């Protein structure tokens, strides 16, 4: 993926550079930057970039929305841009218009289910919903008597149990009990919870790839400045090789996430191929986050372990994102089962299908 694939990505990159500089955000004594950032994203049509205009979005292609997700990772964007995008995407699948303001999405874990009761209310628990505390609305995938539906729920209409992710961002459980949605729509035939999970996998994979891009650039730059034993540490072969490996992990994440995003955006792949792309992206990007973050920290020495320096904003987010929409172990088991079912002689044809 190029840095400027689209006008939208270009605008977003400029805006995030101005209003979401990680060091400025990290140093800020208050939250003033937060509303300013959200406001600017909204005014520039970046919140619902790839939602059709008639549903309240900017009408850009899904690929543009994906570009934004990678940028969100690269700038460690500390507002629910990804969550709101996912919520908007799910609402639009059911033909529901997107409301103003921050949103999040439920469920986030493949094994959580929300039931749609006969009386039209929702019941169930969605664990570990990112930014739930800040959201005005939730897009909820619920399963009722006539299959999966999407419900728009006002934040005040469900109970919240607060927790946080590795980076200290809200990660709350949502409890639905007799919750009556503001709006409700049936999802298209064949669309189910797995499709939401795979979409979530691709979004988190892109964010991880973006965060790794920053960690690589930052680590290379740091190695070229820091002096030890009267040399720049970039001159030590052990440091060079660590950074070469970080470049490898970053590349793997970019390639896997970019390919999966393209598979979803172009909509030409068959179901097993989409599953392979999205699940593999989540698995490989999570592995890259683990290995890559460790290397970035190693190259930085103690400074990278401080609150003042911003490396943790990227490393801890990337590590936290591994767990959303099913972690890499979950997807590896699912992928492994699918491959075993298809059988040994069908493995290569699937891998080489595109």
């Amino acid at each position, binding site marked *: 993926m190029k840095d400027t694939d689209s006008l939208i990505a270009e605008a977003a990159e400029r805006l995030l550079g101005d209003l979401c500089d990680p060091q400025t955000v990290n140093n800020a004594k208050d939250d003033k930057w937060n509303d300013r950032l959200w406001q600017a994203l909204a005014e520039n049509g970046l919140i619902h970039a790839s939602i059709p205009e008639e549903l309240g979005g900017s009408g850009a292609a899904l690929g543009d929305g994906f570009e934004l997700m990678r940028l969100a990772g690269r700038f460690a964007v500390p507002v629910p841009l990804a969550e709101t995008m996912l919520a908007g995407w799910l609402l639009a699948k059911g033909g529901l218009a997107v409301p103003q303001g921050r949103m999040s999405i439920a469920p986030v874990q493949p094994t959580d289910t929300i039931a749609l009761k006969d009386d039209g209310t929702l019941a169930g628990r969605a664990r570990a919903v990112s930014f739930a505390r800040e959201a005005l609305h939730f897009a909820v995938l619920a399963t009722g008597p006539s299959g999966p539906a999407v419900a728009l729920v006002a934040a005040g209409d469900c109970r919240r149990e607060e927790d946080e992710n590795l980076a200290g961002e809200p990660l709350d459980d949502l409890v639905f009990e007799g919750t009556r949605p503001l709006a409700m729509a049936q999802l298209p035939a064949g669309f189910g919870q797995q499709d939401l999970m795979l979409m979530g996998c691709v979004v988190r994979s892109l964010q991880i790839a973006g965060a790794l891009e920053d960690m690589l650039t930052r680590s290379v730059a740091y190695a070229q400045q820091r002096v030890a034993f009267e040399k720049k540490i970039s001159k030590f072969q052990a440091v060079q090789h660590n950074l*070469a490996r970080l*470049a490898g992990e970053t*590349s793997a994440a970019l*390639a896997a996430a970019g390919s999966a995003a393209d*598979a979803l955006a172009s909509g030409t792949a068959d179901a097993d191929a989409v599953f*392979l792309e999205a699940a593999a992206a989540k698995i490989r990007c999570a592995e890259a986050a683990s290995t890559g973050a460790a290397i970035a920290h190693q190259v930085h020495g103690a400074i990278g372990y401080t609150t003042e320096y911003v490396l943790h904003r990227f490393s801890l987010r990337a590590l936290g994102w591994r767990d959303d929409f099913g972690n890499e172990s979950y997807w*590896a088991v699912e*992928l*492994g089962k699918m491959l075993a079912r298809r059988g040994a002689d069908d493995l290569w044809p699937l891998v080489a299908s595109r």
Partner: protein
Amino acid sequence: MSSALTFDPIRLPEACQVLRQEVRAFLAEEIAMGTFDPTGASIGNDDNARAFAKRVAAKGWIGMTWPKKYGGRERSFLERYVVTEECRIANAPVSVFFTADRQSGPTIIKYGSEKIKQSILPRIVQGELHFCIGMSEPGSGSDLFAAKTKATKTDGGYLINGTKIWTSNAHKADYMIGLFRTSASTKENRRHGLTSFLVDMKTAGISCNPIGQMSGLREFNEVVFQDAFIPDDHVLGEIDGAWKQATTELAYERSGPERFLETYYVLTELVRAVGPHPDTRSAEGIGRLVAQLHTLRRMSVSVAGMLEAGKEPVVESSIVKDLGTVWEQELPAKVRNLAAFIEPVPGNQPPLARRLAFATKVAPKLTIQGGTTEVLRGIIARGLGLR
């Protein structure tokens, strides 16, 4: 600023998938004819491999990206990619033409005289010529520029004296592209003084001594030169300037499917051995390995696509080779772990165990041949601006 690593999500065009079916059908026929054993249980014979090369050539699949005037088909890198990966997966005996197709031919196209191009390239395309690469020497491996084998100017050409080593397939090859010393290196440039030559292996004064391999295969050799004469027009490129000559082709050479598929067969056999209902541990292990394989292939296809588009993804291709060779090297050990609780079939040795044993013996070479992991990471580090 990002470090700007680029991996465009390249898709193989429809034409490639049509070609793939054609390649698969062709290979299935060859297997049915007994040309080679797809399970690798028996080692093929040389005559079969030579005959196979001619039939691949008849399909137009050797030198398929080269200019038509030299017998090529001017097809895309992505089409070549498909032929390469299908041959690897099938375990087809490509060694006769693979080196020439990937490396030697493109070098000749770029640096050979017109007369050499006219005489050599069409014969490669016909599947007639087997090439080897003479770079390493007893005292010069990773440090190529320490090569000592000398090319001394004489009437109408050069006399070669010295020893190349680890030369794969030298004992079968018709030609070598070799790196020889034409001048001493200079104080300012230790890479100066080496020249690339096309060497006819039938030349008097060249002898090949086999070197055994721990895998049991008979592949590499010591090649001794004693006053072997090479005519002037067999020089490839600039005298003393070989160090300038390896750039873009390297990207293709480093990032092809052969850089991660060498031990793939153990993964197939693992999936076969666990059957349709794997336990959680096997399922997770297979899922992770295939996610990694899929990612490597996406990266590799991406580099091929970027090359086809005229870009120069030099760092990206080195990264593919680094990740790919480490992956294919670790694969046998990982598969062995995952297979630990599969009940062996009593009596004959199951295919997985046999193939694992072979892959385990082959594994050590994968991160050495064609440039070690350490050297490769140095190249990546240079690309990152660290050296």
